[in-house]
């Protein structure tokens, strides 16, 4: 096959196919979303899960069943999946389980810039870090093999510039051979009661030590460059920036960054006159090197924030403390589409001076002018809990203005337990939950979820989540559905009534996203013409 020109995400999907992954699952999140969509297009079995924790649990089950699984998410998604991760490393796996986690240094479309490398160390999961599309392909295949061989789930840590950059990829021309799935009972290995978990923790550390002693770390280590006056230790895309900034310098790039090839780093530092660690985000490599008494330099604190690039790496290497250049004018911020139904909703919330506990999605843009109708946004699903807390704490006149606003996909992701809390511990003034149901996961690029009634490939699913019925089943008696555009007056009346009452109310503001509707219509037309 000739070389392909692929994004990192596309390369991971191709490797999943070539690596005989039997199921890919995850939750959409920029910059990770396209991996599963591409895997589906290539003919792999891909599906969206309600959230990352469920996705990881499904992937774990697949790997217990001696089949290969790929689980994808963005960095904050790993917070949701962390509960499963920290015990999955204890139970281990029977076949390859690769968890792709995409970090977003610089927060191009995220609420924080947490560094997933900390999770690998904390949970004990081995971690691979590709720096370009070719490595994304190669490392995914290798990670599947390593996971199966050492019986551990493996994290493939990507970053925005690896996920969304395109480069040349040479693919393997054969499909990996894996045995047919079968169940082999292993109660002490899979059931984490304390008596079985204690030896499981010891076993995890032994497996990591065995991986560290194997030939794998050296296979994933790149060492190049002739000028030993300057040595650079760098991981992921930071190594590409370093090559650009200091073309002749000696470079050490570990592809396996947990467990770290610490002795190779020590030998490398001893061979160069000056050794500098170049890494995005937290000082993960630097701290490990210094803890091992390896004489390396790190980066000034200001380079902990945002992405690196060749210019910033030059500054780090030169000790240049001058201010970094700024654009002559700021870029244009994103905003709600002209025909988006969220506009009417936020207009009404602003008019009634609501205190809005918001959530994550397109509708977070309700915080922007002219609406400025959002007071909090923390993490997926937080709108409900935060709104309830505000209602509990504030004096009644303010508490009655608190409204929780959540999108349909986010509600399914982590809003369901919040709704249970709302029914279980209602504030004295009641509460209002507004589900903005636009029938898609809009912000990440119009993905399906259990509430749309369609699968990842847009074909009908076998069920469709019914938000109103769920609320009624939980004991919330005031449940309303309204189109906030067609029936804007009714929407305002429902909101006004709910604000005045001391009861629990769910209002589902339902109107499909115009972008999603157009795409769905085109998809359906294509299906009809091909059938």
């Amino acid at each position: 096959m000739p070389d392909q020109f692929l994004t990192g995400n596309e390369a991971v999907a191709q490797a999943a196919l070539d690596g005989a992954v039997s199921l890919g699952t995850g939750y959409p999140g920029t910059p990770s979303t396209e991996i599963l969509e591409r895997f589906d297009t290539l003919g792999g079995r891909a599906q969206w899960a309600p959230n990352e924790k469920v996705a990881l649990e499904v992937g774990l089950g697949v790997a217990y069943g001696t089949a290969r699984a790929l689980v994808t998410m963005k960095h904050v998604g790993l917070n949701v999946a962390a509960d499963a991760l920290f015990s999955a490393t204890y139970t281990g796996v029977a076949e390859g389980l690769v968890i792709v986690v995409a970090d977003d240094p610089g927060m191009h479309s995220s609420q924080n810039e947490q560094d997933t490398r900390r999770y690998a160390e904390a949970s004990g999961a081995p971690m691979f870090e590709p720096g370009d599309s070719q490595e994304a392909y190669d490392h995914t295949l290798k990670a599947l093999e390593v996971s199966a061989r050492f019986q551990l789930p493996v994290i493939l840590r990507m970053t925005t510039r690896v996920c969304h950059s395109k480069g040349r990829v040479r693919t393997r021309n054969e499909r990996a051979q894996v045995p047919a799935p079968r169940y082999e009972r292993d109660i002490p290995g899979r059931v984490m009661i304390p008596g079985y978990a204690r030896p499981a923790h010891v076993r995890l550390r032994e497996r990591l030590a065995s991986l560290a002693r194997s030939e794998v770390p050296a296979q994933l280590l790149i060492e190049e460059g002739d000028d030993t006056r300057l040595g650079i230790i760098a991981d992921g895309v930071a190594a590409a920036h370093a090559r650009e900034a200091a073309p002749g310098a000696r470079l050490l790039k570990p592809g396996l960054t947990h467990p770290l090839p610490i002795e190779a780093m020590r030998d490398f530092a001893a061979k160069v006159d000056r050794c500098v660690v170049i890494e995005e985000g937290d000082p993960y490599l630097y701290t490990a090197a210094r803890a091992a008494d390896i004489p390396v330099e790190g980066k000034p604190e200001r380079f902990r924030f945002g992405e690196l690039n060749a210019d910033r790496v030059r500054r780090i290497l030169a000790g240049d403390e001058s201010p970094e250049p700024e654009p002559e004018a700021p870029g244009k911020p994103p905003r709600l589409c002209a025909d988006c139904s969220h506009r009417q909703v936020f207009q009404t919330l602003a008019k009634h001076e609501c205190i809005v506990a918001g959530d994550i999605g397109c509708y977070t843009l309700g915080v922007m002018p002219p609406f400025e109708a959002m007071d909090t946004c923390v993490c997926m699903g937080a709108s409900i809990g935060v709104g309830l807390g505000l209602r509990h704490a504030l004096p009644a006149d303010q508490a009655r203005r608190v409204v929780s606003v959540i999108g349909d996909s986010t509600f399914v992701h982590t809003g369901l337990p919040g709704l249970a809390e709302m029914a279980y511990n209602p504030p004295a003034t009641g509460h209002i939950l507004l589900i903005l149901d636009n029938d898609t996961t809009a912000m990440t690029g119009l993905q399906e979820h259990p509430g749309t009634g369609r699968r990842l490939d847009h074909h009908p699913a076998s069920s469709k989540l019914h938000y109103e019925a769920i609320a009624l089943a939980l004991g919330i008696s005031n449940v309303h559905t309204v189109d906030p555009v067609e029936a804007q007056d009714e929407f305002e009346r429902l909101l006004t009534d709910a604000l005045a009452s001391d009861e629990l109310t769910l209002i589902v503001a339902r109107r499909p996203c115009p972008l999603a509707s157009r795409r769905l219509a085109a998809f359906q037309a294509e299906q009809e013409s091909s059938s």
Partner: protein
Amino acid sequence: MSDRHGVTNIVIAGLGGQGIVTGSDILAHAAFAAGHDVKKSEIHGMSQRGGSVSSDIRFGPRVHSPMVPHAEADFLIISESSQVLPNRHRLGPQGRLITPDAVPQLFQDESSQQAARMVNVALLGVLSAHLDIAEAHWIDAIRTQLPEKLHEMNLRAFRQARGIEALFGTLTGDSRPRPTL
């Protein structure tokens, strides 16, 4: 072109929904088909909602970083005039700015909606006269990166704009005081 080991740096910038990513895909795939090492990078996500979008394309014998370093763009292509100021700092000292002002006569016979959909490919047509990529690779890239129903319209835009540039000849010097080709 600079002496950065033969690497050409191009930044395409505009607003979400204008087809910046598709335009940069056409350029990157044309360069790839021409046998160059190519890297292309941009930001998705929030910027899809009408905000500023920019895409970096780099090609040459060997490309390392996927991002065009600060003030090293050889060409800055802007599809919406408000985006000149937020991006102009990316141009190198000998860099050239290409804006829609370069191709107005192209669109006299088109509806404004039609013209808006053709502008990116027309700007690539202007750019193409300056790059070491054969026309056939551009045509192929337009065909593979766009849906079939848009081929005819965009191939017309590309060829006309490439022709316009040929009429003016190759421009030289620092374009920054004069923000159009």
